[in-house]
């Protein structure tokens, strides 16, 4: 327990400066939607521009945020860990907003509400990352979830989008309940919801049925957000039906927040009972990656394929968590950052197609690399990174997981990860084959794909992330390792 932190813990609002800025930006966006004249030229575009500025302002505020202090009566920590995840989440938000602007305009989505909800969802995710207390973490999760349910159903004319929202909402509501049940068990066992106090009390609690039940419930509740097996059933339908930028956000932002929460709860609060949850997470990890990869092999729709791929990737992250060591902690953090860039990038390519009114089946991507070499190459780059080909971000992500797992003595888990990655060649290369080997359908051959400027910036940002993390993993790993030590 850190007594110094508890003493400092008054309502130190500067700790949540970025969250305040982002919330204000969200409210402003709602107002902008209401007060900008209906038929103003480029109104939705202007709102989109405002949203980008809001996200950037929050990122700027992050640099002014004090590190190493507690706030809001000790319920949040602004530590290196929190800073890392908040930075990643805000960069995700920036990329998602950039790829949304043209999409929102074309699909006639109410822009103010859309961006405001994205902002609020990100605020919720950020709160999950900085929470020092199970209750504030839960509230952050709810804010993230409720915003996400609405975002998933934003394409009102499209029944798939409605299906996406309903499925997500029904299973999500139950998962929240499960998580809350787990928290309540933990409160009963330890008498506290503060993670450090929980850890302190747990070292004297004998492991038994109640503790195990709490572990299972917490894993289930958070596993839902992570789309881990067997809590993944919502993911394919929701990912496919939701507006593509929202899918991108759910797959990386929502997942990133869940990883942050996992790390906080398990590595801080439940640290004394590591042996109890290590194997549980290892088992969930293997199931998740295997099911995700095998199911992805049969997909013909790229959004759905990426949904299963993201289930598999969640399995890889869980392998880092299951290692239950400092290497695993930093590996999971690095993975989230790498995954954010490569997955958002892949969805951004799909957005470029959707903006032209083209679909997102494998057949729709046929000949893409010849129609639009740069766009095709970027997609190739993101897929290679997802596959773990060096020297891209995704390679180091997997490499660090290997290191953590082998170091923890979980060689079988590392081997499972290796074999799973080999399976994933089958579907990632199905996309590559469509783009590079198959000819474009006649009516589309030679027709370029025009991506708007903001979308191009978003794509460039994602590609830069994949390459920079790949060539200079040291910087980011160092950051993650520092955060791991200070947890």
């Amino acid at each position, binding site marked *: 327990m850190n007594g110094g932190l508890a003493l400092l813990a008054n309502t130190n609002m500067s700790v949540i400066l970025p969250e305040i800025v982002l919330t204000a930006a969200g409210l402003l966006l709602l107002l902008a939607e209401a007060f900008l004249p209906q038929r103003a030229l480029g109104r939705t575009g202007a709102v989109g521009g405002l949203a980008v500025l809001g996200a950037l302002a929050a990122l700027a505020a992050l640099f002014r945020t004090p590190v190493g202090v507690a706030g809001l009566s000790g319920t949040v920590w602004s530590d290196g860990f929190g800073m890392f995840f908040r930075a990643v989440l805000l960069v995700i938000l920036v990329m998602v907003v950039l790829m949304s602007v043209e999409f929102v305009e074309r699909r006639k989505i109410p822009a103010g509400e859309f961006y405001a909800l994205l902002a609020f969802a990100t605020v919720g995710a950020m709160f999950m990352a900085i929470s020092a207390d199970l209750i504030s973490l839960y509230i952050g999760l709810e804010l993230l979830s409720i915003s996400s349910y609405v975002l998933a159903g934003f394409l009102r004319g499209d029944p798939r989008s409605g299906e996406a929202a309903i499925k997500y909402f029904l299973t999500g509501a139950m998962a929240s309940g499960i998580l809350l049940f787990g928290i309540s068990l933990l409160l009963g066992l330890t008498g506290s919801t503060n993670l450090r106090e929980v850890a302190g009390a747990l070292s004297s609690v004998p492991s038994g049925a109640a503790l195990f039940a709490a572990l299972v419930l917490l894993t289930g509740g958070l596993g839902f957000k992570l789309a881990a097996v067997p809590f993944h059933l919502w993911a394919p339908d929701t990912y496919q039906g939701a507006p593509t930028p929202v899918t991108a956000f759910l797959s990386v932002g929502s997942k990133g927040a869940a990883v942050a929460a996992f790390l906080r709860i398990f590595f801080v609060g439940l640290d004394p009972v590591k042996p109890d949850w290590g194997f549980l997470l290892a088992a969930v990890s293997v199931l998740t990656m295997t099911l995700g990869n095998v199911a992805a092999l049969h997909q013909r729709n790229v959004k759905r394929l990426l949904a299963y791929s993201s289930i598999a990737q969640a399995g890889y992250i869980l392998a880092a968590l299951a290692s239950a060591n400092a290497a695993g902690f930093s590996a999971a953090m690095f993975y989230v950052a790498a995954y954010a860039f490569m997955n958002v990038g892949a969805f951004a390519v799909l957005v470029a197609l959707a903006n032209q009114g083209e679909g997102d089946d494998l057949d729709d991507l046929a000949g893409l690399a010849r129609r639009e070499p740069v766009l095709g190459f970027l997609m190739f780059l993101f897929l290679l990174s997802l596959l773990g080909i*060096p020297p891209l971000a995704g390679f180091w992500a997997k*490499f660090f997981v290997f290191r953590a797992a082998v170091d923890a003595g979980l060689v079988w888990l590392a081997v499972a990860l290796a074999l799973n990655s080999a399976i994933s060649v089958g579907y990632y*290369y199905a996309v590559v084959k469509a783009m590079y080997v198959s000819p474009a359908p006649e009516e589309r051959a030679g027709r370029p794909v025009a991506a708007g400027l903001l979308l191009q910036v978003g794509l460039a940002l994602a590609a830069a992330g994949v390459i920079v993390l790949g060539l200079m993993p040291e910087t980011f790993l160092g950051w993650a390792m520092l955060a791991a030590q200070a947890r």
Partner: protein
Amino acid sequence: MADLPMLSLLIFVPLAGAAVGLFIPAERERTIKIYAMAVSAIPVVLVAAMWAAFEPGSAGFQFKEYVPWVPSLGIAYSLGVDGISFALIALSALVFFLAFLASFGIERRVKEFFILVLILEAAVMGVFAALDYVLFYVFWEAVLIPMYFLIAIWGGPRREYAAIKFLIYTIVGSLLMVVAIVALYLVTGADTFSIPEIARRAPESVPLSWRWWIFLGLFLGFAVKVPVWPFHTWLPDAHVEAPTPISVILAAILLKMGTYGLVRISQPTLPEVAREFAFALAVLGVINIIYGALAAMAQKDFKKMVAYSSVSHMGYVLLGLAANTPAAVNASVFQMVSHGLISAMLFLLVGVFYDRTHTREMERLHGMYLAAPMAGVILAFAGMGNLGLPGLSGFIGEFFTLLGSVQVFRTLVYVTLLGVVLTAAFNLLMMHRVLMGRPREEFAVMPDVSPRELATLVPLMAATLLLGIWPSVLMNLTNAPVMQLVAKVGGM
């Protein structure tokens, strides 16, 4: 000259060449072809300069370069060559140059093809020059990316199947290899990924219970590439579908990556396991030799026959490594280079005849001596090299492998003699089928081998002959590192 980072130049000249090549307009196909060939001539010149400066008596690494990459994990951009890797680099430089020359017939998506082959050249050079596990793996995987496209886009009718099969087989192996590498790194002190440094530490620091697993992980990664039976099934598919220059590169160089991995990594790093595994490796080698020869004999497709003949010839490399006597290992490395030359020649010739007849069925190809006398003579030369005629390089590699192995694996070597007979049989059978008799009417009049084709074949013929009558050109290079390896694996 010695001050230049020669190995980096070998890697980055083709890579930069590929990047610059992107700016040539795609419709200027001839410019692209000549440009790519000019770029690939630079490594040949560099290798010649390096050869002049090379100290053949030294077992250590030369032309070393070192730049930290991820210092906190001990990962570095570390390059260096000894005689063994330099021999393979020299082979690669030559074969790539000739492969570009042989690629002038490519007509579809020309720019992409030549850029991909340049990238492939950079990756191959990197594999043979890397002295850091992570860097080695980076190049190892980088080979796959262009290779997939080169088969999947420019290949034959079943190209997509062959390309993905090649990719998945290799990736399964290489990912298990990564796990083994990570384990090796962690148990040897977790502060360096240097290949020689880990090899130095491993005998003392790798726990007994881990040794076999690490060895097998590494071995699987390399075995798929060699390919060791029963992991070879991707090879005939890939060869049959790949366009001629890619088959040449695949057989001449990419297969050597597998055996090079055994020589550079698994044998010296885990010598105790290598000793215990030697008999199994020898058996696998003999299976490769005999199975490959039998399968080659059964083929009706000319190209598939040459592909299986590769499986057979790579068996000698395995057998020689397993025997671990100075003669056997020297011959084993010699065989890698010799097979690189001879298989390249054979695949080029398959292409020469296919271009004229549009068939690879040996049943339909008879009478080529009459139809294209010069090409026929060259094929006879290559066939004789392939069956191990004394005076050509194939003989030295195979004969000395057997001679060096006989004191270690007496019975196995006797069994292998059967393989030698089979090798002679399938090569003579091939020559009989393809060259003898009267040509079919539609093939009776065809242009003989063109000057460009001759330019690709003659250097290979000359090298085969040179190594056949003067093997010490190569053995002088390889002997010192081979002696070191033999001493280490032998437990001395």
